[in-house]
């Protein structure tokens, strides 16, 4: 309802035949195909071990996929490691454990989202251009954390840390935000607050958000589109209304016979 109309039809990400195996034996992804539109708020739902984190990490190349292609704005980003920094800059990431640098201030943490825009030599003096500082404070204000800019990150509560982490991702001025179980360590009230911020980001800034969750409840409340994953495969792709008990059963409890058949 809030979505900007024209942008809505552009494909932002396109994943084709993506597989990932660790050490040749653990098959974390077994052939993922999906398309994600610009400004979409997409929830990837699945039990622990389904391959959700691996999928997100493949998208910004923290993990190298075994096979398959990823297109970002119609440009293939797999295979070539030369523009790695530029690709990662375009994908903001939000983690379950927030992963702020605990001993740095909130503002410096957000400023690290600007590092990919600046040369290493400039960073040597821990000094950022005025423009970066403006961007960082704007991003903090967007998640209502600008009043704590000079506090050390480890003095914040979990919910506040996650908001700062969102601000850090926004400071990258990304086209996509990848959130890996962003609310798994938060209590329900704070979790809803964080998910609301993420959804706002998608609607107001037109940033595509892919959010991993393992809780059906939050998924129903927030997702516009849901991709259900189980054992490295997409087993559902639809809206909250289509997420019936039957589908949930398919995502969370797969027939063990079917599983052994796959392994062969």
């Amino acid at each position, binding site marked *: 309802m809030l979505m900007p109309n024209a942008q809505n039809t552009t494909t932002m990400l396109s994943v084709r035949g993506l597989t990932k195996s660790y050490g040749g034996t653990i098959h974390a992804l077994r052939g993922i195909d999906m398309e994600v539109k610009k400004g979409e708020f997409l929830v990837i739902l699945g039990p622990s071990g389904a391959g959700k984190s691996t999928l997100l990490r493949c998208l910004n190349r923290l993990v190298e996929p075994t096979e398959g292609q990823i297109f970002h704005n119609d440009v293939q980003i797999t295979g070539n490691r030369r523009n790695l920094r530029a690709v990662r800059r375009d994908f903001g990431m939000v*983690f379950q454990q927030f*992963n*702020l*640098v605990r001993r*740095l201030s909130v503002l410096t943490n957000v400023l*690290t989202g600007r590092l*990919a825009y600046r040369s290493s030599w400039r960073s040597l003096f821990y000094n950022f251009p005025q423009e970066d500082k403006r961007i960082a404070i704007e991003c903090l204000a967007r998640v209502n954390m600008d009043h704590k800019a000079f506090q050390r990150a480890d003095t914040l509560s979990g919910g506040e840390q996650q908001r700062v982490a969102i601000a850090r991702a926004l400071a990258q001025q990304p086209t996509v935000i990848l959130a890996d179980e962003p609310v798994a360590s938060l209590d329900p009230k704070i979790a809803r607050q964080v998910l609301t911020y993420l959804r706002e980001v998608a609607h107001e800034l037109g940033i595509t958000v892919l959010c991993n969750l393992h809780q059906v409840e939050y998924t129903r409340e927030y997702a516009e589109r849901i991709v259900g994953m189980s054992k490295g495969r997409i087993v559902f792709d639809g809206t909250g209304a289509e997420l019936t008990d039957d589908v949930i059963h398919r995502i969370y409890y797969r027939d063990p016979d079917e599983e052994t058949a796959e392994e062969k």
Partner: protein
Amino acid sequence: MTAVSFETAVSAGLAREAQVRHRRYIKQAVWGAIAIAVLWYAAHQIKFSPYAVAAGVPFMWDFLTRLFPPDLSYMSVLGSATIETIQIAIWGTLLAIILSIPFSLLGARNTTPHIIVFHATRVFLNALRAINELVFALIFVSAVGLGPFAGVLAIALHATGMLAKFVAEEIESVDKGQIEAQLSTGASRMQVILFGVIPQVIPSFVGYSIYRLDVSIRSATVLGLVGAGGLGFSLIQTMKLFKYHQTATCILVIFLLVLVSDWICGKLRRKVI
């Protein structure tokens, strides 16, 4: 499970427990015997002898009485040697702190540019650690001449080995999540080191540097024995001239210096950690 098969399972478990326990007893007995044999042989080799200690008591007593009483007027002469000792320790440690920054980064698996560089750095640092300050001092006395600067270099090299290895291990144990978050923004390796690694290791680096300063002050008190400046030089000179009351003063001053240094460094360390 039926009652009978349950009973069999339990007794099988108990039998297995006894078997495991007996194996452990045998293993402990074998290792105990080996330890005793090694210690016995070593004692024999080093001519361990309580009798020699007893026989030496009169001589030690004689030496102690000759030290007594310390010549307290000599303290004023030792003032400059004491300050020199502290200066050697401070400059030696400072050089070590500066040198250990690149060496710790090269010698940590997660920040080294190449695994070969990592191994080479670790071997080099272990060599620095293996060589005692006194041995380094001997080398530097012949290289740069008698005096405190040889002592500074000796302390600097040995402390670099200790400090850089410690910091390298701290670097290897940083929280990976904070690093991954920086990598995911598209930051370069160097930027990740600056904003992800360094903030995490700063407290232990500072804490250990202060501890190293304390250790260096202790080492600097004996460097004079080989002519590398400081209180040790007064110590060996007064002994050579048989001025044992002055030697006693040297020992007393060294003791006080170490005491004060331990107290101050301890306080500083608690403050930063």
